[in-house]
């Protein structure tokens, strides 16, 4: 019966969640690096960051994923042989995380860049005038205010990221889409399983929507919105 497979699909849902959260972490790191490169006074850094965001946003995620997954394995084998090590297997899990993180890093970079620029320069000057160090200014003054501007863009990107994890099933990762596919084949009831996956995705986006609203409220503390 179809509900016998429910447990296995829920395991897949956990994998999907793990994958998306790890990719999110990866993407935020890439995004912060891109944003600082784009805002840096060193021109080659800015060019490199612009190249990265332009190229990544112009290529479908599945193509990049296939390139990293299949190409990465060959590259690793090649390097391992050169370094005199035994070749090891490139797991689709990490290939998926690195690729999704790398792709969404480009989008997050744009979001962060806009948000950093939205913080008034006077805030940084005031921090420095009070004798705070550069890192202090960054973490205590710039970041908390930046997050308020970045959150709407971040939540958008997160929802897109969550949905794009479904394509890791095309490189053989046993996420919930892949498990639903298998369950559908063996029970000849694919519709039910795909619908369960749809419902789980909807649940995840709904839950993250609620959570992000709360975060947005938290980071907008003290901001007065004009009455319409």
């Amino acid at each position, binding site marked *: 019966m179809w509900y016998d497979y429910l447990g296995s699909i829920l395991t897949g849902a956990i994998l999907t969640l793990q994958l998306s959260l790890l990719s999110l972490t990866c993407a935020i790191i890439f995004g912060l690096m891109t944003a600082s490169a784009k805002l840096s006074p060193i021109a080659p850094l800015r060019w490199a960051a612009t190249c990265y965001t332009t190229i990544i946003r112009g*290529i479908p*995620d599945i193509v*990049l994923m296939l390139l990293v997954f299949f190409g990465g394995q060959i590259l690793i084998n*090649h390097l391992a042989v050169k370094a005199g090590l035994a070749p090891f297997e490139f797991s689709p899990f990490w290939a998926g995380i690195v690729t999704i993180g790398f792709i969404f890093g480009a989008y997050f970079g744009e979001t962060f860049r806009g948000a950093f620029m939205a913080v008034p320069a006077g805030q940084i000057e005031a921090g420095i005038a009070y004798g705070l160090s550069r890192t202090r200014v960054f973490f205590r003054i710039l970041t908390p205010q930046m997050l308020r501007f970045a959150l709407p863009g971040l939540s958008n990107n997160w929802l897109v990221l969550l949905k794009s994890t479904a394509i890791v099933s095309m490189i053989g990762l046993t996420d919930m*889409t892949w498990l639903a596919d298998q369950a*559908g084949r063996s029970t000849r009831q694919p519709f039910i399983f795909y619908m369960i996956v749809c419902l789980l995705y909807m649940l995840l986006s709904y839950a993250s929507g609620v959570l992000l609203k709360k975060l947005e409220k938290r980071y907008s503390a003290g901001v007065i919105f004009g009455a319409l």
Partner: protein
Amino acid sequence: MDFQPGIILASLPMFLDGLWVTLELVGIALLFGMIFALPLGIIRAVNVPYLTQLIGGYTYFFRSTPMLVQLLVTYYGFGQFKWMQDQWNAGNSFWLLFREPYFCACFAFTLNTCAYTTEIISGAIKNTSTGEIEAAKAMGMSWITRMRFVILPAAMRRILQSYSNEVILMLQGSAIASAVTLVDLTGVGRAVYARYYAPFEAFIFTGLIYLVLTFAVLGLFKLAERRWLAHLKPRKH
């Protein structure tokens, strides 16, 4: 592990076929998506009881689930039902379409892009400034005239930017068509990889074609903006 351009040259005809499939799929989806999204977006914006909520539910479903799953449901899912199988056995030519991967991809992509476009259009319509609508009413325009000559022309100009995003998302989203055995651009990339075991040649070249397509789309929208958003350009004189 040397980069062999010969592989790309030998597979160029295949890549051209794949490019054509991708362009066709995306073109059909965008065309029909727009045709359906226009009335749906208007209804969603003007608040018709029940209908607006129904459309809201449709767009919510399609925007919060992955397009890959939507495609798989269309191609593999419907065959589960006895009724569908009976239709197929009876040779009903309409329902037999759901056994064609090409039709299924067009179907799923159209519904998906239609959902996003509906939201874009309804958002633009809702953003019409009240003064414009008041002025149109004061001129004695009927609802249809108002929609046709005041609200829609302005709203369709406003959607240009977000619609260009949607077109690019659709172009890149169509890369999953190979999941239902279609040989689109990505499908060709996978086939070339499988034949020569050359991931770099196959996928880098595929990526480059998508990159060029993306730039072409962006360029077209730049032209469209120059034509239809000319009044927003910064003054030069």
